[in-house]
């Protein structure tokens, strides 16, 4: 879950007086967790609500939950003389989508600016997956001579400006190779003949998305008027991110203006028609249309009841609202999950387990009663194991292991048992250990999943007779029928091992482990063991049995 750090004093300024307990409850019900950390709150939030990952965004949601403010906030729509011309044809295949909003009259201070800039970076790293899907620029427009803006892709040599934190104009290629952000994000423009640039028609550059902003329009604690530009490769998220940032700035008292954009279709607001009966059928409740409207308004949505349905007009920043059910959840959340009476339906179904589970259970009981102690191991194992007793069987390997030690699924249980014997050499003898569990391997190019049982005995002497007696008891307990084939099994002592066949096909092996294998693993005592395939799974339809 994404985390963020929010100043507690800033949050109090935005929400008003609220006890930490009440705040924590509100955050809990908004799917988050909150911890006090010095003067800040540390928050963990679910990824569906990126609009809440800053002080002002969280404050908007909390105020709704507490009923302090309801419905979609009415950020005063002021007029603006800003225009944006989008040169769509130049941007195709580079960063074709963009959106722009202007916020003016904000009373900012250092803390507010800090919140806005941190939010921008939070969105870049989470929702945008590292500026891939969109890149945000927040600018102080008071320095601009012209209010006629243009977004287009230009030849890198024609892009020259002083980047943020720079002290002289540079061209686009220099920015990519010699600024920190340039180096960090250059890969996003790799292969592009032209680079996107956001500028005025007079040639004043605001930014070169998704790399860096210009120094010219850098925001400071004295900034009151902002332009938010978002450019990207994902149309829906580009539009949503622009609203998220601009709306969250507006929470600090700004007025929102939409510049006239030419060359690009405006993403329309989404409208839902929510059937009240549908809400109640999904939740098992008996809400009236009024209840639904009230709860949606606490979720900061404008809703109106008409003819047994509720009409909801959804702002773009709520990226989580895709289907009716998403609005139903909002209703349920605001009504309070813990206010619902849990109700267990009486469905007449018959329970049961798979045959492989029953067999595993019989095998586990048998081996435990024969004096073996059970172990539980990971399915992921390493290459560093004794030789494969069935060389025709392949392993299920992963191409991107987290650590080299764990790069394939186990096809056998016995290597794990040998490591356990190694770890417990100093314990009283005889040492008897077993595991019953799943294995997976490749046979004739097909994926195979099976349940195996393996048991090992280690003592001053651990010979074939001893292990065969135990195996015979195991077979009697589990109804397992096996024939011995006295053929040498790799990694066992020659003449003192056998393959096991069950129902005519190879099913396992038994015998005394070769001392050279033991010495290699650092085991000082003889080990005899057996391993059998109890059950090979097969697809019946799309699931296994």
């Amino acid at each position, binding site marked *: 879950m994404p985390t963020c750090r929010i100043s507690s004093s800033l949050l109090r300024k935005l929400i008003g007086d609220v006890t930490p307990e009440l705040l924590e409850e509100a955050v809990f019900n908004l799917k988050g967790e909150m911890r006090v950390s010095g003067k800040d709150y540390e928050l963990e939030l*679910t990824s569906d609500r990126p609009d809440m990952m800053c002080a002002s965004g969280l404050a908007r949601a909390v105020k709704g939950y507490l009923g302090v403010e309801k419905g979609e906030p009415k950020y005063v729509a002021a007029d603006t003389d800003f225009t944006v011309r989008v040169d769509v044809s130049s941007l195709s295949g580079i960063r074709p989508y963009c959106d722009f909003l202007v916020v003016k009259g904000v009373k900012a201070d250092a803390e507010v600016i800090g919140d806005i800039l941190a939010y921008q970076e939070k969105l870049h790293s989470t929702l945008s997956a590292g500026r891939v899907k969109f890149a945000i620029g927040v600018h102080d427009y008071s320095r601009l001579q012209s209010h006629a803006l243009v977004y287009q892709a230009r030849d890198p040599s024609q892009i020259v400006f002083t980047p943020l934190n720079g002290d002289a104009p540079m061209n686009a290629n220099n920015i990519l190779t010699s600024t920190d952000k340039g180096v960090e994000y250059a890969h996003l423009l790799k292969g592009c003949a032209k680079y996107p640039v956001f500028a005025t028609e007079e040639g004043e550059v605001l930014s070169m998305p998704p790399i860096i902003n210009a120094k010219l329009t850098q925001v400071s604690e004295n900034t009151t008027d902002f332009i938010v530009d978002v450019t990207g490769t994902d149309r829906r998220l580009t539009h949503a991110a622009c609203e998220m940032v601009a709306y969250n700035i507006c929470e600090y008292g700004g007025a929102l203006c939409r510049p006239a954009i030419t060359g690009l279709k405006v993403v329309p607001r989404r409208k839902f028609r929510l059937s009240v009966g549908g809400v109640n059928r999904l939740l098992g409740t008996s809400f009236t249309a009024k209840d639904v409207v009230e709860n949606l308004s606490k979720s900061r949505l404008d809703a109106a009841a008409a003819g047994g349905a509720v009409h909801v007009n959804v702002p773009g920043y709520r990226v989580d609202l895709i289907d009716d059910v998403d609005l139903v959840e909002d209703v349920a*959340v605001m009504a309070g999950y813990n206010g619902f009476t849990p109700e267990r339906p009486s469905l007449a179904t018959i329970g049961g387990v798979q045959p492989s589970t029953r067999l595993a259970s019989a095998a586990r009981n048998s081996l435990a009663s024969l004096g073996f102690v059970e172990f539980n191991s990971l399915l992921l194992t390493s290459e560093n194991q004794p030789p494969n007793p069935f060389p025709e069987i392949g392993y299920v390997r992963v191409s991107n292991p987290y650590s080299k030690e764990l790069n394939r699924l186990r096809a056998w249980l016995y290597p794990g048992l040998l490591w356990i014997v190694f770890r417990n050499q100093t314990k009283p003898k005889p040492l008897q250990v077993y595991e019953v569990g799943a294995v997976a391997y490749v046979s004739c190019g097909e994926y195979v999943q099976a349940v195996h049982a393996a048991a090992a005995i280690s003592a001053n002497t651990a010979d074939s007779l001893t292990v065969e007696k135990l195996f015979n008891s195991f077979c009697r307990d589990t109804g397992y029928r096996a024939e011995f084939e006295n053929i040498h099994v790799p990694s066992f002592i020659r003449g003192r091992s056998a393959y096991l066949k069950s129902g005519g096909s190879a099913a396992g092996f038994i015998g005394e482990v070769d001392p050279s294998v033991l010495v290699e693993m650092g085991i000082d005592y003889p080990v005899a063991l057996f391993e059998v395939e109890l059950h090979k799974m097969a697809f019946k339809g799309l699931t296994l049995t």
Partner: protein
Amino acid sequence: MSAGVTETEAMVLKALGGGGEFSLDDLCEATRLPVASVSSAVEGLWSKGLLQRSESKLYEVRLTERGEKLGKLPEDVLYEYVGEGVPIDAAKTGSGLSPDDFKAGVAWGLRRGMLRLTTSDSGRILTKSAQKRDLSEAFDKLREKGRLVFDEVPHEYMDLKARQIVEVREASSVRVRLAQGVSVHEVLKTRVHTALTHRDITAGSYSRFTLPPYAFGSSEATAALRGKRHFYKEFISTVREILVSMGFEEMLGPYMEYEFWNFDALFVPQNHTAREEHDSYAVSSDVRLGPRPSREAALRVGRAHEKGWGYRWDAVAAGRLVLRSHTTAVSARRLAEKPTAPFKYFTIDRNFRRDAIDQTHLPDFDQCEGIVGGPSLTFRNLLGFLEALASSLGITKLRFKPSYFPFTEPSVEGYAYHGELGWIEVAPGGVFRPEVTRPLGIKFPVLAWGIGVTRLAMVYYGLTDIRELITQDLDAVVSKEEASAKVAHM
């Protein structure tokens, strides 16, 4: 006098019954018991005041290594060999003695007056003088007995000690006799048996003795060497049993999975971070996996993505193989089989995540997952299932938190209250989104939930490190309480 003598004590008493003093060796011989049993019986009888014990200092004489090698004393060998006279040089080679023994034999033979050395024309002649058997007899006796014990060591042995043929050690000796006024006959009536034997029962002698009381809890009895099932696997079996009792049927799916079932069918967009290389394991083996999703299902899933997420869905990406990251993939497969409503299915099985192994993470871990499908099922029904499950596991306080999963809406996280740990997450769940059910051909609500079995097992067993569930230490497995007992005690 304390009551009751044991079987071995009785045997020792009988031996002492004839009167007189006995050493432990004497008693071993008389009772045919090993010395350890005899000394513990003597200790017991003495503590009961039934015998008198005297301890004295003794000397034990044994042959040295050199003494063991000698069959006879060298001077005896020479005495017989030289007879009426042999030149000394001839005797040196002819007597069969080693040069050292020959030297010693000549020296001691002369010193003890057994041999005589004369000088004649033909050189120095060794002849026998007088036979002396004192040392030889002492030597022979020791050879025969192996060891001899004396209050005071006879001078013969001191001489042999000086010659390093024997060694003398100090030893303390216990000698015992019956205490004054003890009647063996009376004491034997109080004989105590320490254990009931087969013979006691068949011979009917059990009625004639009493077994000594055994103080439970005071001995140092440790756990026996034994077999045992693993506590965590048993915990999972217990959860499985609870689910079956609630009418859930087990479903299983493959560990290696198409991205389609692991992600696409669950409405996880193809550009979601969970699908990237750093989160899920990509399979590199050249391998086929069972039947592929139907073309119809694939198309519908793709359309749901394009409508809901607004991007162009790629069927090739959906066909890539990964190690499944959650058991919800099994639920998706089961739903695609269009089971008849109403139904309840569950699975408890492994999943894989690219994580370092640490106190709270394992790269493969178990999830318990259930789905309930049928017309007219509601979100309140889901809460009802979570509550019933929690209560079967001994959890009485449960609260619900709104949550987020890409494939359910509404989504919930069930928190259980634990006396020491406070509220802990145990049961996530939700109602499958229509984008999940509709493309698979399911037209009614499907409730889905999970139980954090691993987390619960850790809470039940008071474990703070998840690695304890995959311990390789025998004692850690053997020492754990049975899982069903743990749940019953919760």
